[in-house]
């Protein structure tokens, strides 16, 4: 007495998801943009005309050249101009995006992993673990992330690893809280009871059942946090607490170049600013769409 199913077209969740995601033009556009930016960052060494980290190659005589100017030794054209150190802006930006992306993703990934594990544990187990963890989270959250990162960086000094650690430390609590509340919601759902009823172990329920279902809201938060982390890193660099000057992130490039804005040498600050804007905005847009697609509440009735 098998019943034929024709109610819902049989489509894998990922296909369904992709179709839903790309149904908005702006999401598609920002996704493509983000992809391009990420590819550019990934292949920065191949794409950039100059290795901006090789100090021996930089020539002071090339400092602050306008976009399109040829370098003194005629070896390359500064398409987007050069900075105060004679560094090709295009190359510096490609590498800067790389750093920003690394910082954003690495710090978010660490924070997500830590927050997720603790949040799930707290949400699923409840009781004392939950109480203690959530108090710690409360304390952490009573401090704005920028303050925490600021203090940690002031303590540790500059460096890529340190800024990643500082940003992760400043953000894990968000994930812990989000994961916990997601876990609390999911834990009450009947499929978790069913799993318990089937005698499955707590660990198994936590990781096989709870985790995949708590992940979507966290992924959205994380995607947004990547953007926030990139922005935060830029701000910290601006405040002088970021990365080494010889390996500038976008934020540092902006900070270095800003003073030249007023004297008409707009390219040193403006181009990295625009790059930062595009990067952060495209991540945000993609994350935004992710949220809409993943949130069943905002979806229309099933077709």
């Amino acid at each position: 007495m098998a019943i034929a199913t024709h109610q819902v077209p049989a489509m894998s969740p990922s296909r369904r998801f992709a179709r839903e995601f790309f149904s908005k033009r702006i999401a598609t556009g920002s996704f493509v943009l983000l992809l391009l930016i990420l590819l550019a960052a990934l292949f920065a060494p191949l794409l950039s005309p100059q290795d901006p980290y090789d100090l021996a190659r930089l020539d002071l005589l090339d400092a602050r050249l306008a976009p399109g100017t040829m370098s003194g030794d005629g070896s390359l054209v500064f398409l987007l101009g050069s900075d105060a150190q004679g560094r090709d802006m295009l190359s510096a930006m490609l590498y800067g995006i790389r750093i920003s992306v690394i910082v954003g993703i690495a710090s978010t990934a660490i924070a997500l992993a830590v927050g997720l594990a603790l949040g799930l544990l707290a949400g699923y187990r409840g009781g004392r673990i939950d109480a203690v963890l959530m108090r710690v989270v409360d304390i952490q959250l009573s401090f704005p992330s920028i303050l925490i990162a600021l203090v940690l960086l002031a303590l540790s000094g500059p460096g890529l690893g340190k800024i990643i650690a500082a940003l992760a430390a400043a953000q894990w609590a968000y994930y812990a809280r989000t994961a916990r509340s997601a876990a609390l919601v999911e834990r009450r759902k009947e499929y978790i009871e069913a799993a318990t009823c089937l005698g499955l172990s707590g660990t198994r329920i936590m990781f096989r059942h709870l985790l995949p279902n708590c992940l979507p809201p966290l992924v959205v938060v994380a995607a947004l946090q990547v953007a926030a982390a990139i922005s935060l890193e830029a701000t910290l660099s601006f405040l002088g607490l970021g990365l080494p000057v010889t390996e500038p992130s976008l934020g540092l490039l902006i900070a270095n170049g800003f003073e030249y804005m007023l004297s008409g040498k707009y390219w040193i600050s403006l181009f990295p600013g625009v790059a930062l804007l595009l990067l952060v905005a495209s991540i945000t847009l993609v994350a935004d769409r992710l949220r809409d697609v993943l949130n069943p509440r905002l979806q229309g009735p099933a077709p």
Partner: protein
Amino acid sequence: MKSQADLPTLAVSGLTTEFPVAGGIVRPVDDVSFEVRRGQIMGLVGESGSGKSMTAWSIMGMVDAPGRISAGSIVFQGGDLRTLDERALRALRGDRIAMIFQDPATSLNPVLRIDTQMIEAITAHRPVGRRAAREMAREALARVGIASPEERLLAYPHQFSGGMRQRVAIAIAMLNRPDLIICDEPTTALDVTIQSQILGQMQALCREAGTALVWITHDLSVVAGFADTVAVMYAGRIVENGTVERVLRHPRHPYTHGLIASAPSRNPRGQPLPQIPGMVPALSALPDGCTFRNRCARATEVCRRVPPLEMLDGRQLRCFHPVMEEGA
């Protein structure tokens, strides 16, 4: 020549509501026609997704875009609602035509006090002072059997139980003594004892005030002792429509017949229930012609055409092969 009194309060005919969807359009309401008269209760019965709520929204003029009413007329007290603009419709809504929803937990605004929600329903339609409106609200609460209405006016919805919330919603619907109330499964979420109370109260109030009632439900047995007429919907169409007496005692449409036959109370205890095979098809995957035909044992080639809604045995019926044996 019909006199004013003979006019049905509501006469829907050929009502069709469309929604554009990915692969074309769907019609949650397809050529729906029925009438309700003063003081009469009509049950609108159908399974989930059959278009009951959409019919109600269509009558209220509240079909959300991109949906639209594409055909038919909705004649309310002699005037076609489809010819009215939004302003005129708004003046009717809540005043002459009221509606009550299924879930009493969500149809009242959780952050506004009951008095606010009642008074605004009055002042939106008539120029009365706050105090007078409040007095009306108090009376309306008392009428639906809520104790100490004066205090209850100051409460928030969450401070009520489900049954009381639904009664508040009914009180709001009745505030302006409307001529027609459309109830979209208002008792489905409630206990049978509470449902029974509410049915009793509604019945009394309608008889008293002469209000016409459209009572939407998926449960035929709710309609049985309560409504005067019943219309059975299947996949957007009314398949059978007549007095409760006739339709429930002698269902002629195979679907209605199947539904009634499958009710546990109609079967000896513990015996397998006669069941309708298959399930309600999705609107986007309806068979052409009679939409019930691929679940129907009586279906033939002729069912590939849409059966017309015709009078048969004292009811309207949309079937080429009516069930004619007596009893169900």
